[in-house]
């Protein structure tokens, strides 16, 4: 028996919709098998991972809090990946955004605030987004002007960003009264993202994530730029003949994805953490890559995919406490999930054919 793949002439919306769901299903099965292989009960794990996070309001908010950076970053990455450009350094842009935005909060700490200090938070957000954008321009520049692979340079810049943050948090930005702990002063309330309700966990970061989804959706559907991005990605030769500037597009998509990641970074330090620490991301920048693909590079798909990934992160934390499953299990699950998504993607582009006899 032989399996042949035949290219689909038309896209099937049913399969496009089903493919990610099937991928999640397959990944859950594989994950369950792995868990039982290390001697844990897959049934209990299923409850801990996928049911308990929905059990109370606190967990539901946690779900949204962790999904926000993923959705925000992935919405930006969708621009790059649609254009077939590979910014895989969102983690670094996130860190730099958090560092630069957070620095404003640290520097203004304890100062007599002009204008009541209401400019601080907007300044942080803008500075963070700009910093992420500039950081993403480095691989874009190296790629377009000098021809260096953006995959490798953007990834190397992640390490450099993490080291830079570590350097400043242990040095200049360290809290002088912090008993030598490598962390900055806690941000003042005026430098923190407001919570959406008193005494709750959900902060305003989610609004940026939702706005990013709306904006990306609008740009992809309604603007010429959105069309250009897709054209350059799927038919680069046609795009060149049509006279699109590849360089401008390269810079634009990197700028968008970098700004989104930088904004996510500053939202994380100003919302969730409330100070600068040597490590500010549990790998959001990498998980966002999975979110982008699981969402099929569609903004609304990314919104759902962000929630799914957030579920695996929270589930992983719960499983570590409740079942002593190592935290790495969620990474294994994420990797498996991305593999399954990519494998299922085949069926959206090809039709599967079983051939029982060897053809001549």
């Amino acid at each position: 028996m032989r399996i042949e793949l035949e290219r689909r002439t038309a896209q099937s919306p049913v399969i496009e919709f089903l493919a990610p769901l099937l991928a999640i299903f397959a990944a859950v099965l594989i994950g369950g098998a792995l868990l039982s292989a290390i001697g844990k009960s897959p049934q209990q794990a299923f409850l801990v991972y996928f049911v308990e996070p929905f059990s109370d309001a606190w967990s539901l908010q946690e779900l949204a809090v962790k999904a926000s950076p993923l959705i925000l970053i992935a919405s930006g990455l969708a621009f790059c990946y649609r254009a077939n450009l590979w910014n895989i350094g969102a983690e670094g842009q996130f860190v730099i955004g958090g560092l630069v935005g957070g620095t404003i909060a640290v520097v203004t700490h304890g100062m007599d605030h002009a204008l009541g200090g209401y400019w601080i938070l907007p300044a942080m957000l803008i500075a963070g987004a700009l910093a992420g954008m500039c950081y993403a321009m480095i691989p874009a520049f190296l790629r377009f002007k000098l021809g260096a692979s953006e995959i490798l340079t953007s990834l190397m810049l992640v390490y450099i960003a993490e080291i830079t943050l570590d350097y400043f948090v242990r040095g200049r930005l360290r809290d002088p009264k912090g008993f030598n702990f490598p962390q900055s002063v806690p941000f003042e309330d005026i430098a923190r993202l407001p919570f959406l309700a008193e005494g709750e966990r959900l902060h305003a970061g989610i609004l940026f994530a939702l706005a990013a989804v709306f904006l990306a959706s609008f740009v992809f559907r309604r603007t010429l730029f959105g069309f250009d991005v897709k054209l350059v990605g799927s038919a680069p030769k046609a795009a060149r003949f049509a006279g699109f500037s590849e360089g401008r597009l390269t810079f634009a998509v990197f700028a968008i994805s970098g700004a989104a990641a930088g904004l996510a970074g500053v939202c994380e330090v100003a919302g969730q953490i409330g100070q600068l620490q040597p490590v500010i991301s549990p790998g959001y920048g990498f998980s966002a890559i999975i979110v982008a693909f699981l969402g099929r590079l569609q903004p609304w798909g990314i919104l759902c995919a962000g929630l799914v990934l957030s579920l695996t992160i929270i589930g992983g934390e719960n499983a570590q406490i409740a079942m002593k499953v190592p935290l790495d299990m969620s990474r294994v699950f994420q990797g498996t999930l991305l593999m399954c998504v990519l494998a299922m993607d085949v069926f959206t582009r090809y039709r599967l054919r079983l051939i029982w006899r060897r053809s001549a």
Partner: protein
Amino acid sequence: MTLTMFELVAFTILTAATPLVIAAIGELVTERSGVLNLGVEGMMIAGAACAFAIAIVTGSTALGILAGIGAGMLLSFIFAVLVIFLAANQVATGLALTILGTGLAGLIGSGFIGLKRDATVHLYIPLLSDLPLIGKLLFSHDLFVYLGWALVAGAAWFLNRTRSGLVLRAIGENHQSAHALGLPVRRVRFLAVLFGGACAGLAGAYLSLSYTPFWAPGMTAGRGWISLALVVFASWRPVYAFAGALLFGGATVLQLHAQAAALGIPGQLLTAMPYLATIIALVLLSMRRRRGSVAPASLGSTFMPER
């Protein structure tokens, strides 16, 4: 600098270069066949964890090495199926492989944190190993270093001097014409990917069985990615890859020595050296060959036989 000091530095450069060169040769052969596997980091760290775990459990270094190679091959097998037979996107699948490999390594290694094992034995040939300079640099390494050298020579010979090597290169340059000539495009690519996985796993085994020698999460520290850059840096030629690995090994060792010498340079800047060096190397190289790329022409593109 005294002779012994020079000897010591040169010796550590050779050992620091070994994981890079082993992984780079594997990826180089994979890429020459037209497949870009970005999962080197994941395969390497999974290899490191499996090698150490098996070596501790069985007490045998040889079985540990085999386990490392096996882990790398298993992961590359998954990658190969997805990319070659299911036509999945190579960049994204490679990233998935890195995430998966890192997670699996953490899972496997979690029971082995803090354990220690003697490093693998180093060669000692009476007289030869005692020679000044040459003895230390040529005749007193462990198995892995020699394996690395053998891989460089073997890959150079295979790619440039054998018919199979020619077939592999033809497939990497133009899979459509190779297919038209009746060459088994997908089978060759499959084997090339498996070879790359085996090498990455071996490089990981070197790290956890000889270089450090213990298991720590994240111990590969981007070496897989640096190997990928090394392949570009080497213009897809094995001997250049060896030279490049020595340069990068040199950057690592320089960092260690500078840290020890306490020159007042922040430690973080030194830690960032290998990553900065990688970017600079990539940029310099791309600038030099602005006019024409030497990358295998079909690199990264999927081949599906049309019927």
